[in-house]
């Protein structure tokens, strides 16, 4: 055995690509369809009253099907955020937004203009795309509501 010449690359690089296509199901479909009309639908469990976004068709805590939908938002409150260093758009942060009336948070982007700072408890509103097709990306981002 010899080890002359140039050595083999000790690393094998692979890029794995697999396409998926997720069925949204009835409750999430209701939510996604609502986005076309700039409306947020939450599911409401008639046992525990929890209003969930995105909606569930089943409350796993009460072990009961959910039949009620209510509208929530469109304004919400930042419950948590993280800036994304090295992101391509400086000023964009990833945030958990609790829509007004909902008990759970929707993860989305928060678009800040120069001089603005993300803050827990800040009031936000959605910025909608002109063309909407029933996707969470119909919401371009959330933006801070101006005080007063």
């Amino acid at each position, binding site marked *: 055995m010899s080890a002359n010449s140039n050595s083999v690359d000790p690393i094998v690089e692979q890029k794995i690509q*697999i396409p998926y296509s997720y069925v949204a199901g009835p409750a999430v479909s209701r939510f996604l369809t609502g986005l076309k009309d700039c409306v947020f639908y939450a599911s409401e469990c008639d046992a525990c009253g929890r209003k969930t976004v995105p909606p569930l068709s*089943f409350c*796993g805590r009460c072990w009961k099907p959910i039949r009620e939908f209510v509208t929530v938002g469109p304004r919400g409150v930042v419950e948590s955020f993280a800036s994304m260093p090295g992101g391509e758009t400086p000023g964009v942060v990833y945030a958990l937004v609790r829509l007004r009336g909902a008990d759970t948070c929707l993860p989305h982007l928060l678009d800040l203009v120069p001089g603005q700072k993300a803050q827990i408890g800040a009031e936000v509103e959605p910025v909608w795309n002109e063309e909407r097709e029933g996707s969470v990306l119909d919401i371009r981002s959330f933006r801070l509501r101006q005080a007063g």
Partner: protein
Amino acid sequence: MPQKVAIIGTGQTKHAAKRTDVNIRELVNEAVTRALIDAEVQLDEIDAIMIGNMEPFEGFMFPEHWAVEGWGGYLKPSVKFNTGGTVGTTTIAASYYYIAAGIYDTVLAIGFEKQSDGHTQTAITTVGDPVWERTMMAGAVGNFALMASTFIAEGGVTDEHAAKVAVKARHNGARNVNAHLQMPDLKVEDVMKSELLSWPVRKLDMCPQSDGAVAVVLTADHLAKKRCARPAWIRAVTTAHEQQYMGDSPKRLAVMRSQTAASRRLYKMVGITNPRKELDVAEIYEVASWAELAMYQNLGFCEPGEAGKLIDEGVTLMGGELPVNPSGGVLCTNPIGATAMIRVAEAALQVMGKAGEHQVPNVKTALATGYGGNAWTDAMILSASF
């Protein structure tokens, strides 16, 4: 002394090629709801949940978190399993060990896969070793074709034997309300004329890709006797892994070392010396018609070279000496992360006398197996008494 463990309830979805009406969480919920009703157990009586799934098929990491509302796992102790085709039997085995060890009394085991959300042949190719095998991998069909070719080369089995197995499965499946493929009128020549996917495997020799979920309620003996008139007792569980690379066992289907080792060990644990006579039914993980024939030998139902004779003589048909896969088996239904657990659930239904139209009369002892990964085997014996 370990606690004795019994299955007291099962639930399955109506398995199908594409469940476009539900998402993954809703699919799982259907099976869990049915299992709890069947076992007459409330969710708060479940001590822990074991959940099995093969993540690459949905590209869906941590399904145990994502789907928690659907399977009743909120704040409960739970463990996830991901062991390839065997995942369903591994999940049952783990549930069994937890109860036998006295850690939990009542455990809910869940298996699911929603294959229409992904690309099965593509995802399965990633199981190959990245340095040595992956660039050559050929999905499940190509891989099984290679394995089947080794089996045919040993002699004793023909296309017609394989087609008879495929027909048996589809006729049995037609009597099982939950089976994905329902083909009561399928004929041997239909199988032999179906599209050649990869010689010797034709389309009707191969299992389908299914969306489906299964759930099983297991409990310790002091509760089982109170809750269930005729529980299915888990008498013994074993598992065997064999090889590191695909080519380590060149005759991979003809000589399936893990299956031979696991089944012989299992039979010894319960005192079975003649499985063909002493087993009343078997639910085995046969991904292709050819695999079922090879498994007859590997599981000791016949001598090597006699698998073709076994199907010719009708030994494994409904009404035969040892019916194999009265549910229709994997050849009718294959939601991979659920498939091996469906074998256990179906074996339990047979022991409990609850299999309905596909019930084998007077089942006292049943075998269930799982098969997957690089030729791994799980195996267990269920029985009407302990």
